[in-house]
């Protein structure tokens, strides 16, 4: 019983991490139809920004979260303006171009800062110990941040003029254009927002994961899986599917090998997608 409770609580922080790392992907993939293979590299760049802010310049972790978001958002905007802009509507080509971009970014970081792991310290030491169940403070912080990010993103997309315009562009690009929406600006902002969220994710995972040039590749598969299961354009769906995937893997991993747990869950997802290809929590899309 203790194991079950403890694994379920672990599952929540794993869910939070999965959601944070997948959110940028759902925005870019779901709302803009761009398969962003460089998403993992934005996470990586966010983690490197955190390394420089906290380890090299000894600034507080919160500053690094902000810096990681801004730096990657700026880079995202730049990449949207120079590269992605030319490829809208061509899903396969965005895939190729962003894949190339991911290799370039990875190798640039490797050449500039070396291939080895960088150290990012734990900003929140300490843990609660309730009857043998250990909950690190940082995990609670992650869950809190994930919920906050979810709320802010939903508010941004559903309560602001920008969000309304974005949803209009997503539903019907040419119609939105006819009605005077500056679609180019919306595109740039959205891509920057998605990239920035990836960078923020990099900052948040840096204290508990490895920070190295190839780290991004480990998050992209789980990220896409989450997005597909959650429904392509649904932010709330991504949150829900993060919890479903992580909870089931983590709880099962308490009783069998981690590998078996993952294989079983992935199998179930494949079957689910066969019968519900639009994802579990889809919003209507034309």
């Amino acid at each position, binding site marked *: 019983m203790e194991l079950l409770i403890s694994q379920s609580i672990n599952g929540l922080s794993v869910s939070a991490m999965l959601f944070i790392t997948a959110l940028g992907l759902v925005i870019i993939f779901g709302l803009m139809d761009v398969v962003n293979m460089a998403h993992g590299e934005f996470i990586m760049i966010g983690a490197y920004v955190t390394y420089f802010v906290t380890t090299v310049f000894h600034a507080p972790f919160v500053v690094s979260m902000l810096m990681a978001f801004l730096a990657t958002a700026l880079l995202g905007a730049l990449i949207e303006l120079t590269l992605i802009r030319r490829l809208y509507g*061509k899903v396969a080509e965005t895939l190729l171009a962003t894949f190339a971009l991911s290799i370039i970014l990875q190798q640039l970081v490797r050449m500039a800062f070396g*291939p080895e*792991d960088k150290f990012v310290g734990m900003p929140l030491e300490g*843990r609660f110990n309730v009857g043998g169940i250990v909950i690190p403070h940082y995990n609670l912080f992650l869950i809190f941040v994930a919920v906050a990010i979810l709320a802010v993103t939903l508010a941004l997309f559903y309560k602001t003029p920008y969000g309304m315009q974005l949803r209009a562009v997503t539903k019907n690009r040419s119609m939105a254009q006819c009605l005077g929406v500056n679609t180019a600006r919306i595109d740039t902002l959205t891509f920057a927002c998605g990239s920035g969220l990836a960078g923020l994710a990099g900052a948040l995972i840096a204290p508990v994961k490895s*920070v190295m040039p190839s780290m991004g590749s480990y998050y992209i598969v789980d990220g896409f899986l989450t997005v597909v299961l959650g429904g392509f354009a649904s932010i709330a769906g991504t949150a829900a599917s993060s919890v479903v995937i992580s909870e089931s893997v983590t709880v099962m991993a308490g009783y069998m090998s981690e590998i078996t747990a993952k294989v079983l869950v992935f199998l179930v997802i494949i079957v689910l997608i066969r019968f519900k290809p639009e994802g579990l929590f889809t919003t209507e899309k034309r």
Partner: protein
Amino acid sequence: MRNTKWFTGLLVLVMAVSLLAGCGKAEKAPDAASAPAAAEGIKIGVLYSTTGPFSISEKPMLNAAKLAIDEINAAGGVKGKKLIPVFEDYASDPAKATEKIKKLILQDKVVATVGTNSSASRLAVIPDVERNKSVLVYNTYYEGEKPSPNVIYTNSVPSQQSADFIPWIVKNLGKKVFFVGSDYVFGVTSVKKAKAMLEKAGGQIVGEEFVPLGHTEFSSLINKIKQAKPDVIFSAVAGDSVVPFYKQYQQYGLSAKDMPICSIATHEATVKGIGAAAAAGHYSSFSYFQVVDTPESKKFVAAYNSKFADNTTVTNLAEGAYHGVYLLAKALEKAEKYDGPTLISAFKGLEVDSPQGKIKVDPTNNHTWLQSRIGKIKPDGMFEIVYSSNALVKPEL
């Protein structure tokens, strides 16, 4: 139409950039292109990735190999001839390693090649090395399976890393051991060998778990470890999983004092990534640590650090590549002609004074007798050697 053109232009640009990124190092590699004719020197291939994920281990190995070659040439070379390295980068792609080894052997006509690192890349080049009766000097610790008669293995096999480590653990840290490993050939084989040794040493196996290669989420594993209440964790967790494993181990409140991790894959470079606070108190077993106190080691570390300011760290792997080149030079000195079989037999029984101390190539199985050491990570993140073998440890497959 305009878009298509744009895209083509872009694709060309992207390809050009990635080509530059991929080959820049190889093209700039010293001496390779402008080298004098083969008659004036002895060509050896150096096959390490400076691009792609494997470069984390292979960049330091390449550096160390370069350093050894430069030192040997500065001291007069081999039989009065200089070693001429031909550098190739296989971009962390085993399939590309196959292409590159063919190029090195058939086009550059190297007498031997130093390099490859992962088992996948080694196994990818072996068929061509064997077919062309060439020689590969392989300098990474590996699982000790499927050895090739055309390969000289200069780093340890699992039995060497565990032979002293396991009895020492049972004697000094406790009998109850939990085994963890990355789920691939090195991790699985190492755990298998270590378990057998633990039973021989009178220890008790209280658990065994494997995680996927590259796994970064250890909360479940840590829970299982806590349930099993071992004295010690024996870890063959390797690659990119090492740093998150130690970080999360500390995050969940497990301490090196109560339950130290005894690893056969955690070295100086990964300790930097883990951070001294989370790494301190844990143990690793290798034939070489940076802090080994031999004149050769001090010279090697100083020369490496002054020559390469590229954010890489001297580890057991770098030392392996360094002594691998020295062993090759000695074999070239001894061999009368440089065909594969003659060169391989020249290696047998060869001894060199390497940074880890004296080492010796086994006369029968192409592997190397090595030192055995156990290092404990100090609070400042450096290793402190707490055990050294008095005799060389036999490479038992």
